[in-house]
């Protein structure tokens, strides 16, 4: 089954050499279908389509200290395996990971 994994961090705490997830990507192997880092929240755009128009504004929708720094899509047998894979993500040490099964 597929899981979407959000890598959530306090942006002020990342940026060290140990953050580089290359080893993690190699280790996850075929269980990781794809993933990317995201540009910082200052480059985010939020939109609310309403009443036939779209209201656009700057900034992230969620005004929290921790922000989504990247995402990965995993293909794992179950949540336990997904947790195993996700827990090894180096950036997760600075924050948290949210795992969401893809509806299917």
């Amino acid at each position: 089954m597929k899981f979407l994994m959000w890598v959530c961090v306090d942006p002020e705490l990342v940026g060290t050499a140990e953050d580089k997830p290359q080893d993690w990507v190699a280790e996850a192997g075929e269980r990781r279908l794809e993933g990317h880092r995201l540009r910082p929240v200052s480059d985010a755009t939020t939109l609310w389509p309403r009443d036939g128009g779209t209201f656009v504004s700057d900034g992230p929708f969620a005004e929290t200290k921790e922000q989504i720094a990247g995402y990965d899509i995993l293909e794992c047998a179950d949540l336990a395996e997904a947790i195993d894979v996700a827990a090894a993500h180096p950036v997760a040490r600075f924050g948290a990971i949210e795992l969401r099964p893809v509806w299917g």
Partner: protein
Amino acid sequence: MTDPVRAAVDEAFRTEWGHVVATLIRVTGDWDLAEECAQEAFAKALASWPRDGVPRRPGAWLTTAARNRALDKLRRGAAEETRLRGLALTAADDDEAPEPDDVPDDRLRLMFTCCHPALPLEAQVALTLRTLAGLTTPEIARAFLVPEATMAQRIVRAKRKIRNARIPYRVPPAELLPERTSGVLGVLYLLFNEGYAASAGADLVRQSLTAEAIRLARVVAGLLPAAPEAGGLLALMLFHDARRATRTDDAGDLVTLADQDRTRWDRTLIDEGVRVLDEALALGRPGPYQLQAAIAACHATAARAEDTDWARIARLYELVARLNPSPVVELNRAVAVAMADGPAAGLALVDGLAEGGNLAGYHLLPATRADFLRRLGRDEEAVAAYRAALDLAPTGAERRYLARRIGELDP
């Protein structure tokens, strides 16, 4: 400086800066490079115009100079081949054939990019001033009373987001035009107010904000003739600016509209405002800027304060209230009604407002009420209302005015 060449460069800077930068951004896609090359083109003008004379079309000269400079820099960068090809292509046909005036103007594209709703409002304003008006970062920082470093960061972030989030450099498609135009107009209005509200301080930077806002509003109104609110905003600015010299006395205190020396109002600006507003209203789609401009026009075109058409102003406020219902607008309408139909009619409206409770804590509500009561000869009630207003009034000047009124009625 009286040097005519220097004056020509200054004039070209005011009128052509936005044009040169906008063209260079379109051609190179690089905001920083565009600004840098525009700057160098003006520096080059300062050096060569005294020697060679002021060119017949300064704007075209400057654009060509800036483009050649960009070409040089990119050539040195070498790797940028596609951009280089784009530059070379457009450079060839430019010297005698500038863009025809009826194609969407690069400045319009630039304005819609700077005022994109995905950028924070402060960044929209700062970016507009910097790229379209050529104000320096320290000037913008001073005008908005923030540290220079803060303003510099704001501008850098905005440019970075335009690049990273791929905010398109284009005039939005027709269906988005109305709402995006209102963003552009909102930024220009903010710019104008920032300069206008502070004109008592006679700070040159802030006065130049007013001038820039009007200049850019003229550009927008000219480029979007089918957008009546653009004309409405321009007219509104013109009426306000026409009265600028009379708004303060020698001591720097505010002079109310009724007491201003109308012979010193700028007739040329008022006439332009009337013309622009008539054209906008003729499109038959009234909006808040057009209505506010129409109200300002009633004041600006009255030869004496007592000639003011208050009945028309009251009707206009009623339309404003229908578009944007707000208790403050209702209060303004009550003042106009009191001038047109007498203080009793105004008092009835204000009492209705007070019962609604929306303006509790707003000192102008009891102050207006007090004024109506005073004019009705109900002195005791007026004094009580003035006292209520005095408790709420935020500024020293207003408190002094209210205390004086109380002293007159209750010696």
